[in-house]
């Protein structure tokens, strides 16, 4: 038991070392700050615009309606902001994940990982966590807008919190797709493009394939695999346990797939 516990400790410490190194490599690059700056620019723009729209609309409403519509700040202000954050993440995340494997392979530093006592799963999890931490920083920055709003407006915190939980889960899918894309190619450009394509793909795929067959089992399956739908549950302020599980399963599956890709690289 003691031995197993020690082994687990060693195992986790190795992952943490991997994560730390990649995390610092990403956040110390100028690219990270450019991304953050550009994102803030877009978000501020969207935020201010929707705040103005909200203000003028509630001005036009009768007092009583405006009061009970207090929660509507979520739809008028947070909703466009979330949409914007999500849109940018589609492109930001692949830019963060691109170098994780591609660069290691290109610079031949991958041999260090390969010849170290690490399993493929440790390597993939370590890299996933580092990119996820960076994405978390970016998402946290966008949350500042919500905090600022709370200074001058009263609203129910449940919906923003659940929305952000949904966003974090969705980002985990983006990150795992980005890590997979990075493992598939040793070219930075190609792995970024691949990552973006993957991310866009999950937004359009369900609409594209749902008409293929009218088989009820098929449409049920398509409905369950509908990532935007699961995300919307959270944005609407509903905590659906099956949606939560769905994200966890998808991310686990993608990490597993990447581990297999790394195993294949090893065997080539």
């Amino acid at each position, binding site marked *: 038991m003691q031995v197993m516990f020690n082994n687990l400790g*060693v195992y986790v*410490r*190795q992952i*943490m*070392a*991997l994560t*730390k*190194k990649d995390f610092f*490599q990403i956040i*110390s*690059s100028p690219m990270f700050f450019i991304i953050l700056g550009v994102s803030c620019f877009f978000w501020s723009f969207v935020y201010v615009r929707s705040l103005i729209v909200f203000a003028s609309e509630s001005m036009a409403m009768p007092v009583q309606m405006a009061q009970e519509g207090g929660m509507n700040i979520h739809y008028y202000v947070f909703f466009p902001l979330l949409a914007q954050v999500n849109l940018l993440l589609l492109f930001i995340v692949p830019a963060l994940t691109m170098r994780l494997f591609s660069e290691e392979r290109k*610079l*031949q*530093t*991958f*041999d*260090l*990982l*390969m*010849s*170290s*006592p*690490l*399993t493929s799963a440790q390597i993939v999890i370590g890299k996933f966590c580092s990119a996820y931490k960076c994405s978390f920083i970016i998402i946290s920055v966008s949350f500042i807008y919500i905090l600022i709003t709370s200074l001058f407006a009263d609203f129910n915190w449940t919906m923003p919190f659940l929305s952000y939980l949904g966003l974090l889960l969705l980002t985990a899918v983006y990150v795992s797709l980005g890590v997979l894309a990075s493992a598939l190619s040793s070219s930075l450009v190609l792995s970024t493009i691949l990552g973006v394509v993957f991310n866009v793909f999950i937004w359009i795929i369900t609409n594209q394939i749902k008409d293929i067959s009218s088989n009820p089992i098929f449409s049920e399956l398509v409905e369950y695999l509908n990532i935007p739908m699961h995300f919307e549950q959270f944005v609407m302020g509903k905590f659906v346990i099956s949606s939560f599980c769905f994200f966890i399963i998808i991310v686990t599956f993608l990490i597993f797939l990447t581990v297999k890709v790394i195993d294949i690289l*090893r*065997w*080539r």
Partner: protein
Amino acid sequence: MIRVQNLTKKYGDRLALDQVSFSVAGGEVVGFLGPNGAGKTTTMRILTGCLAPTSGTAEIDGKDVFEYPVQTKEKLGYLPEIPPLYGDMYVEDYLKYVGQIKRCPARQLKDQVDSCVKKTGLSQVRSRLIQNLSKGYRQRVGIAQALMNNPDVLILDEPTVGLDPAQVIEIRGLIGDLKHHHTVILSTHILSEVEANCERVIIIHQGKVAVTGELSELRQKMHQKSLSVRVEQPSSQLLSQLQALDGVKEVQDERGIYNISVSAEASNVNDLVARTVIDSGAGFLELKENKFNLEDIFIHITRSQGGGS
């Protein structure tokens, strides 16, 4: 300690390794030689688990590299042909990182970094960015990296490339210190390095093991003395006289220098040759005995088996 059996590696259609087998005992330092493209790097990458063979097995300490990857790699230090360095990391952070992923116990990490830095002469640059280091210092960081987990088996792919002569001697000394406690395989093109460090050599050529053996044994096997005589007035008469001598196999005339191949069994040939030259009155200047060194062995083997690839 290391056993490689019938290792074959194909890159697509190209056969890079063809049934390579050898073994290395614990505590041995073995030189891995071969012309460019012979398959040295390929063999080392397979041994360290970076590459899978098409067929054949590689064992370290009795454990198959691919069946027990983690256990075997824990005992392994590897310096790849291109040192695996991250330009945007500091030397010290990099070594710490390597120590952590190689399961160096947390408590010993700092001491281990210190000792590796000291062994490879990195003290002055330990707080600098790797991308700003010169090539030789990067190579040293690469060597330091391989030593971070106190490996039992050290696999070094051309470890002294780009180092200055003083550092070459230091690294040579370092490898000498590792002898007896560690098993070392090092590939190199500098043959004097092998002669200085290694007890044994494995020469590989076009993906096959051409020769393996003790260095001294190899010299014996190749034993074939040759003499060079320099005279003032070379003549064809002297040439035929020399050729007629007992124990002389062949004489080549190179503008006043006669290169004489001597058969291994013959004794006192030096004496005979000298006397013949002096008696002929051609003006004796110099008599030199050539011993075969590794270079000759190397050239002999790689030539006799067809040109390089």
